[in-house]
């Protein structure tokens, strides 16, 4: 089967919002990535320490899949979705959709995306790509993280879609089937903002939202006792930069993208308070980026004594203080 769909490839900040935005755009809905992110209350924070990760880690966005589900619910977009136990069935269903000319989003383990630079390839089961064709047993892919359309042979695609493990993709794939015409974004935007505020300041869980940022500031002081050696500590500290900047966040742990959403939301709702808050979020993002720079610098210089870690912890705590106040203000503004 050879078929390549005429699909405009565009890079995006984040894989989940990027694939969904591209599919919505392809199907005629004019919507931006920040608007998808904001309506779906993608902004979040969590400090996670579990055996599913080799080291304690942070997350800066909502649970994978929630963006898709929230957009479907709030914009009334009907998605056709599948999961498959049997790879043969999952593969032939994907091929069938492609042969019908339907670009389809699939969940994969990022590690097997062999077109990406090797230093970026890590096992993350919640990467999303759009599959837009198949030629000579190779899938044609539109990956938000890659500058051009790319290819992956079908063996590798099978490994990636049925990788197993934590948050296993299980061959998950979807495409938007029905999109309402003339969507009024006002209500969904308000809902997205309110839910984001709830997730950041009101959830009674000690490691998520602003409480998660405080926990991160506190727990990072224990990191030196958890590592193999200085190289390992340097790597983990520098990974903070990767998680905040380079792992599909649009910079500053999604804070820059959220500021962009708030600017667009201000226009949709005709609400100047949101414009001020969007500027404030951009400044908050700048401070998160300072944390990234600082982490990279001390990591590279192996300048990882207690005083430096303490300094890093303090910078993180200040973000928790700011975001606690910010999301309270944001809740009042809508």
């Amino acid at each position, binding site marked *: 089967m050879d078929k390549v769909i005429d699909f405009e490839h565009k*890079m*995006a*900040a984040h894989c989940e919002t*990027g694939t969904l935005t591209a599919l919505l755009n392809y199907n005629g809905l004019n919507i931006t*990535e*920040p608007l998808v992110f904001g309506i779906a209350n993608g902004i979040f924070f969590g400090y996670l320490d*579990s*055996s*599913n*990760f*080799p*080291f304690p880690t942070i997350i800066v966005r909502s649970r994978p899949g929630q963006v898709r589900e929230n957009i479907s619910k709030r914009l009334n977009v009907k998605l056709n979705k599948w999961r498959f136990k049997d790879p043969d069935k999952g593969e032939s269903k994907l091929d069938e959709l492609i042969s019908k000319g339907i670009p389809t989003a699939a969940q994969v383990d990022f*590690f*097997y995306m062999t077109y990406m*630079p090797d*230093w*970026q390839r*890590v*096992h993350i089961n919640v990467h999303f790509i759009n599959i837009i064709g198949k030629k000579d047993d190779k899938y044609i892919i539109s990956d*938000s*993280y890659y*500058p051009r359309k790319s290819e992956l042979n079908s*063996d590798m695609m099978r*490994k990636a879609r049925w*990788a*197993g*493990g*934590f948050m*296993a993709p299980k061959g998950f794939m979807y495409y938007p089937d029905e999109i309402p015409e003339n969507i009024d974004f006002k209500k969904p935007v308000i809902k997205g903002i309110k839910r984001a505020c709830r997730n950041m300041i009101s959830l009674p869980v000690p490691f998520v939202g602003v409480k998660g940022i405080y926990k991160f500031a506190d727990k990072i002081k224990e990191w030196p006792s958890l590592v193999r050696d200085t*190289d*390992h500590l*340097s*790597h983990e500290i*520098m990974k903070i*930069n*990767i998680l905040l*900047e*380079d792992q*599909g966040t*649009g*910079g*500053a742990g999604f804070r*820059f*993208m959220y*500021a*962009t959403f708030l*600017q667009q939301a201000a226009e949709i709702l005709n609400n100047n308070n949101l414009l001020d808050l*969007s500027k404030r979020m*951009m400044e908050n*993002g*700048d401070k998160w*980026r300072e944390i*990234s*720079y600082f982490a*990279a610098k001390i*990591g*590279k210089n192996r300048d990882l004594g207690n005083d430096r870690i303490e300094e890093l912890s303090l910078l993180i705590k200040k973000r928790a203080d700011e975001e606690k106040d910010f999301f309270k203000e944001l809740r009042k503004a809508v």
Partner: protein
Amino acid sequence: MKEKDLYVDFEPQQAVYYVEKDDSSYGPIVSGSQLSHDYLDDFYLKKKNLEKQLRDQVVSRQISPVFYYMTLQEMGIGDLASRVGISKRRLKKHFKPEYFEKLSLKILKKYATIFDVPMISLLQLIIVKQEDREKVEIEYMNTKNDCFIITKIGIKNNG
């Protein structure tokens, strides 16, 4: 952050970042990764040091190749155990050479698929001499027999 403060020229790793444009509107730009632009050498240096440490531990029979690849690929124990379809306790046994030596080909194949290496790479490490690295290319060719691959070693045309 303003566009000019964020933009980095680094073609090998590009991504979309949201910035403040000249007209004060916020929007996306494509930029190189600042971290990789500045510190990629350091990343590889640490990776090389870690590989050497782990290799020494495999050679001296302190750890198994399963632990070697898991650590190099930064996988969590819970995640890897779930991918293989075994308990964490059993996985931990596979970290020890004495248990690794008893593993079936079926299990080895699972590990090889997960780590995306040929099954033989769980039993041997091929290292090309430093001075020949630019010249030599190695190609693993799968066959219809899952337990048998053909390894082609050649000199690159420009070598």
